[in-house]
């Protein structure tokens, strides 16, 4: 089965890979396989496994999307050095399809995790905090906003 790769007009090589076909599927598959791995390694209930996946997903995506700034190569002379990955994708345009997808994934993970743990404490508390932080960080109003100077520039 073949797909066509149309070169996008995004000049930022750090983010334009996200517009090619197959990214969403890979993301979902990685999350699903990590759930299977956690289940087999920790020998816990499926609900706990989903909670662990949800929380580690929160840590990884918060670090990669909203904490690290700039690009991993020096070709672009540092014009994106003040922007996190989330602020760079789609050239800063808000509410595109990619952004909506990335906002929905943590919410869906939260629903699955809380449903499979039957909404018990303390997992529910941690899950809720995680999804709250992630969704608020992705609001259009939070574009280039640094609360309390956290992660502001040097």
């Amino acid at each position: 089965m073949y797909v066509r790769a149309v070169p996008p007009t995004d000049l930022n090589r750090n983010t334009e890979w996200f517009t090619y076909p197959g990214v969403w599927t890979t993301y979902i598959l990685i999350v699903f396989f990590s759930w299977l791995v956690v289940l087999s390694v920790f020998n816990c209930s499926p609900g706990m496994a989903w909670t662990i996946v949800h929380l580690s997903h929160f840590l990884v995506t918060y670090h990669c999307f909203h904490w690290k700034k700039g690009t991993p190569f020096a070709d672009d002379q540092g014009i994106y050095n003040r922007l996190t990955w989330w602020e760079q994708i789609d050239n800063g345009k808000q509410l595109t399809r990619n952004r909506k997808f990335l906002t929905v994934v943590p919410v869906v993970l939260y629903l699955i995790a809380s449903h499979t743990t039957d909404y018990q404490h303390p997992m529910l508390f941690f899950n809720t905090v995680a999804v709250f932080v992630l969704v608020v960080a992705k609001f259009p109003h939070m574009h280039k906003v640094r609360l309390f100077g956290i992660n502001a520039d040097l």
Partner: protein
Amino acid sequence: MITIPYLTALTTYFSYGLLFAFGQFRDFFRKIFDWWRANNLQGYAPICLGLEDFYTRRLYLRIQDCFGRPIASAPDAWFDVVERYSNDNNKTLKRTTNISRCLNLGSYNYLGFAASDEYCTPRVIKSLKRFSPSTCSARVDGGTTTLHTELEERVANFVQKPSAIVFGMGYVTNSAILPVLIGKGGLIISDSLNHNSIVNGARGSGATVRVFQHNTPLHLEKVLREQIAEGQPRTHRPWKKIIVIVEGIYSMEGELCKLPEIVAICKKYKAYVYLDEAHSIGAVGKSGRGVCELLGVDTADVDIMMGTFTKSFGSCGGYIAGSKELIQYLKYSCPAHLYATSISPPAAQQIISAIKVILGEDGTSRGAEKLAQIRENSNFFRSELQKMGFEVLGDNDSPVMPIMLYNPAKIPAFSRECLMQKVAVVTVAFPATPLLLARARICISAAHTKEDLVKALEVISQVGDLVGIKYFPAEPEKQEQLKEMIKMD
């Protein structure tokens, strides 16, 4: 259009994710170790910010032996590659004194002028003795010799424009001319896959830069209409001037530009056209005059034609050809003309002799033979590769053919296996190409004979089977022959 098998796309993303994750882990532990050990910065800021050199350190250095291989002879069809070894897993590479004679599929040697040529080299040596290797001065001070004026006349005549100006370096030609041609209040619309020199020149000019989808005249028209209607950012005044920048042959795709449609659109909206013919001048077209001749576009419609002498002419340097007023203005204002050293006299003589050979003015028909040879070679090679099932990009007649690899592990596998079988190829990966689309780029030359190409095809087919890059089904020709043979038995 690049068609990827869906499973390959998924595995490529997964591989890059894995590489990225491992790189982050190693960086994390490196940070812990370095905090333990005292650093000798003494209050100075570090040279690289944390994330900037991540790609170089954690991805590029792992396969460093596939890039930057030193060579020990002229880059002809066959050349000597110096062997290297590494004791610390490719972080540092040490050269040995062993060389291996390999088939050269990576140099931009389109017409075979890269090695010693029977017409050009004696004349170059004569001019080296007469003029010395360097003029040691800028063009306006003492750096204009008779060779330079003759070269500019010949280049203008070759590309069929009223006049031309020549610079010592191809990259500088783009990055120093664009700031002079356009400034703040102007608009540059450039193809999304333009070369880094154009991107740098456009950024340095201060004009607003917009990008249109690669080789899509409809999208160019849409962007032009939108931008002309909106005007300058914030003030909405009309743009002072609009330049559309395209390339003749895109070096990473091997595709020809859709020049007739783009020129028609630019005429309609009164935008200037800047054509960068770095790879197409001298290599395509019936008499080697580039992509305008091949596609039947009148050179008077293209306002600024730029090219380099590194690819087809076997020399170094770049040129800009345009109207007399434009070149006169550039001679007064371009910093590459006023302050940079002028092109070296033997290099200029090499270009003059190469142009004479291409046009047949040296009394032989070698130029026409070379042009026919490269066209035949490229078409033969491309059709054979496609028959074997590789995904090869590029149009017919273009001497650049990228073979798609996609997965990051296949890049060093392909490169090293081919080198073991004495074929030297160039592989390109992120960030020069998009993340998914890593490729091996083959440049065909007029100096390759049919036997060389057949050997290269054998080696590439073998390595392709080993590495697993035949993404398309092979042509059923051979299967039918086999069936017939079985029937006869």
